[in-house]
C-alpha cells in the first residue's frame, strides 16, 4: 500500500539529517527507557510488598471486636425512664470477652464449605515479652501450627528451627526474627511472656520466621493454642479469631460479607485488612504512569517540533513532488514514515536502555532497613512492560508526526513553485 519510492524518500530525508534524527530518536529512547525502569522497579517493589503482606494475611479473618456503642443503657431496665431522666456520664465498655461463641460449630461448618481450603481457629492476645528488665510489646497467636501453616507461607519463611518443634516441645514458641533479635534470643533460649492482666509464663524458642515486613517480624510469635489458653486462664473453647483460606482468593470479599451476615462477627477480607498497603500500591502505579506519560509526551513534542522544522525546510521538495504527481496522501506518508521510523527505532533502543538500567538497579544493594528485609532492590523483568513501552512509544510518535504530516499534505505547490 505504501509505495516504495515514498519509503526511499523518507529514508533519504532521515539519513540526510543524521544528527537531528538521532536527537529525536534519543528523546523517545530516554522516555521509554525511563518508563521501563520505573515500571520494573515500582512493580518489583509492589510485588515484593504484596507478597510479604499477603503471605502473612489470611483470605478472610473472622473476629469479635470490642463494642463501642454506648447509645443504649441498661438504666432503663432498672429505673422507669418515663418518670426519671437518667443519664450516664462517660460510660466505659464492660469487661466483655472478645471470644467467638461456639467456635467449634463455626469451624466445622466452614470446613465442610467447598470453597474453603483451610481453617485455623486461634487465640490472639497482646503480650509483653520480658527480656531482663525490658518489656517489649507484641502480639501472640495461639494456633494449631500445622493448620495455620496451610494459610500463610510460614513454612517458607522459617529462618531458624522447625515448625514441627512447636508440637514436640512443651511451651515452645516460634518467634518473629526481628523480635528475637531485639530480645537477643536464639533457638533453645527461654523467654518470659506476660499478659496485660499480669499472668506470665516461660516459653522456649523453637524457631524464628521472617515474612520480610517489620510490622509482623518485629512483633508476632506463634505458640500452641492450649498454651495461650493456659496463660490467659481460659478454657479450651476460648477462641478469638478464625482465619480462613479459600481455594480462590478472588472470592474473599464475597465470602467475608457472607460470614459477617451469618455469624455477626467482624469479617475482613485480605484487601480490607491490607488497605493501607493497597493504597501504597495504587499510588506507586499512578505515579509510574504519570511520570512515564510525561516523559513520552515531552519526547512526542520533540518529534513534533523536529517534523515541523523538517517540513518547513522541505517546502520546495514537497511542491516539486506534488507537481510531479505525488498526491497529498503520498506526502503525508513520506513524513509520517519518518516519525514512525524515529519512534520504532527510539522505542527499541529504549527497551534495551530500560533493561540495562533496570538490571543496574537490580544489582544495587538495598539499604538495610528495619521494616523491609531485602538485600537488593526489587526489580521485575516482565515482557509485557517492554511490549507496552514499545507500543506506547510508537503510538506517541505516530501522533507527534501525524499533525505535521497532515500539514505537509495540504501545502499548495503553486505558491512555492512560482518563486
Amino acid at each position, binding site marked *: 500500500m505504501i*509505495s*516504495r*519510492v515514498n519509503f*526511499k*524518500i523518507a529514508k*533519504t*530525508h532521515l*539519513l*540526510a539529517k543524521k544528527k537531528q534524527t538521532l536527537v529525536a530518536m534519543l528523546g523517545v529512547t530516554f522516555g521509554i527507557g525511563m518508563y521501563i525502569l520505573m515500571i520494573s522497579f515500582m512493580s518489583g517493589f509492589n510485588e515484593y510488598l504484596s507478597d510479604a503482606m499477603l503471605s502473612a494475611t489470611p483470605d478472610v479473618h473472622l473476629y469479635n471486636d470490642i463494642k463501642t456503642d454506648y447509645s443504649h443503657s441498661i438504666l432503663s431496665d432498672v429505673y422507669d425512664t418515663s418518670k426519671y431522666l437518667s443519664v450516664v456520664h462517660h460510660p466505659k465498655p464492660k469487661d466483655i470477652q472478645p471470644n467467638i461463641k461456639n467456635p467449634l460449630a463455626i469451624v466445622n461448618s466452614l470446613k465442610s464449605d467447598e470453597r474453603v481450603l483451610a481453617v485455623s481457629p486461634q487465640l490472639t492476645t497482646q503480650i509483653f515479652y520480658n527480656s531482663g528488665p525490658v518489656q517489649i510489646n507484641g502480639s501472640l497467636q495461639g494456633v494449631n501450627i500445622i493448620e495455620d501453616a496451610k494459610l500463610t507461607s510460614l513454612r517458607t519463611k522459617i529462618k531458624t528451627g522447625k515448625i514441627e518443634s512447636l508440637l514436640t516441645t512443651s511451651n515452645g514458641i516460634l518467634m518473629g526474627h526481628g523480635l528475637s533479635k531485639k530480645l537477643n534470643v536464639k533457638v533453645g533460649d527461654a523467654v518470659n511472656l506476660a499478659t496485660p492482666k499480669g499472668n506470665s509464663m516461660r516459653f522456649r524458642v523453637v524457631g524464628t520466621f521472617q515474612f520480610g515486613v517489620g510490622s509482623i517480624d518485629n512483633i508476632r510469635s506463634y505458640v500452641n493454642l492450649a498454651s495461650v489458653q493456659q496463660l490467659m486462664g481460659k478454657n479450651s473453647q476460648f477462641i478469638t479469631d478464625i482465619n480462613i483460606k479459600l481455594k480462590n482468593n478472588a472470592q474473599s470479599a464475597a465470602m467475608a460479607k457472607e460470614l459477617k451476615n451469618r455469624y455477626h462477627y467482624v469479617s475482613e477480607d485480605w484487601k480490607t485488612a491490607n488497605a493501607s498497603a493497597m493504597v501504597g500500591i495504587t499510588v506507586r502505579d499512578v505515579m509510574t504512569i504519570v511520570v512515564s506519560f510525561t516523559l513520552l509526551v515531552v519526547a512526542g513534542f520533540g518529534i513534533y517540533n523536529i517534523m515541523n522544522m523538517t517540513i518547513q525546510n522541505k517546502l*520546495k*521538495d514537497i*511542491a*516539486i*513532488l*506534488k*507537481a*510531479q*504527481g*505525488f*498526491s*497529498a*496522501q*503520498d506526502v503525508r506518508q513520506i513524513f509520517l514514515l519518518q516519525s514512525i521510523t524515529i519512534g520504532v527505532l527510539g522505542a527499541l533502543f529504549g527497551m534495551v536502555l530500560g533493561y540495562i538500567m533496570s538490571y543496574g538497579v537490580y544489582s544495587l544493594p538495598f539499604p538495610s532497613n528495619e521494616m523491609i528485609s531485602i538485600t537488593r532492590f526489587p526489580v521485575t523483568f516482565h515482557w509485557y512492560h517492554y511490549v507496552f513501552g514499545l507500543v506506547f512509544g510508537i503510538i506517541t510518535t505516530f501522533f507527534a508526526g501525524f499533525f505535521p504530516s497532515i500539514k505537509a499534505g495540504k501545502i499548495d*505547490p*503553486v505558491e512555492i*513553485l*512560482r*518563486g
Partner: protein
Amino acid sequence: MNEILSVRNLNKHFTEPEDFHVLKNINFSIQKGEFVSVVGKSGCGKSTLLYLLSTLDTNYTGEIFIGGEKVSGMKHKALAAFRNEHIGFVFQFHFLLPEFSALENVMIPAQKAGKFPLSEIKDRAYEKLKLLDMHEHAHKLSSRLSGGQAQRVAIARALINEPSIIMGDEPTGNLDSANTQTVFQILKDLSSSGKQTIITVTHDSEFAANCDRIIEMKDGEIIGDEKMR
C-alpha cells in the same frame, strides 16, 4: 488536426489582498507537436495561466481539456496521477531534491508511476540524462551541480514518463546564453520529433522567435496568437 490541449472561457480571480481579475476569458487550443511560447510583460498572468494548464491550480472557472480529457473538476488525487503520466515540468529554478543524485532525481517520477521494474527505470533515466549530455554526472549529488547542469537534469526528469506535454515557466531564465541555446535546442528537438508538445513562458524574445507559435498576453488577456511556421 490533432488537438492536445484546449481551453475554453478560462477566468481566474485572486481575492487577496483584493479582488483581481488576473485571467480574462482565455480561449485557445494547441496541436500535438507544437512548440508554443507564451510572452508578455511581467505581471500579465503568464505563470498563472501555466499553473492552470498544468492542473496544479484548480481555482478557476472555465474548462481545460488535455489529450481529449476534461481535467477541470477532477479530484486532486486523480489530477496527481494525471500530472505524473501526462505532464512534464521545467521551472525557472530546477527544484531538484538536494539529497538525491542526478540519476535518482530523474528516476523518482517513474518510480511514482510504477510502470516498470526498478532496473528498467534506471536504464531509462540514464538514457534521458544521456540525451541531455548529463550522463557523466549521473551519480553526482544534485546539490553539487552547476545551474546549467541542474536545469538539464530537471529537463531529463520532466521527460522520464514520456509526457505528452512539457510545460516550462521561464526554463532558461536563470541560464547564460550558451546554456539557453542548449536547452532551446533540446526542447526544439523534442517537439520536432512529433511526440511531445511544448508550452513555455519566456521573457527572451530570441527564444520566442524560434518557436512554432507565439501567444502574446497583456493584462490577463490574449492579444496576439501568431504561427511562425
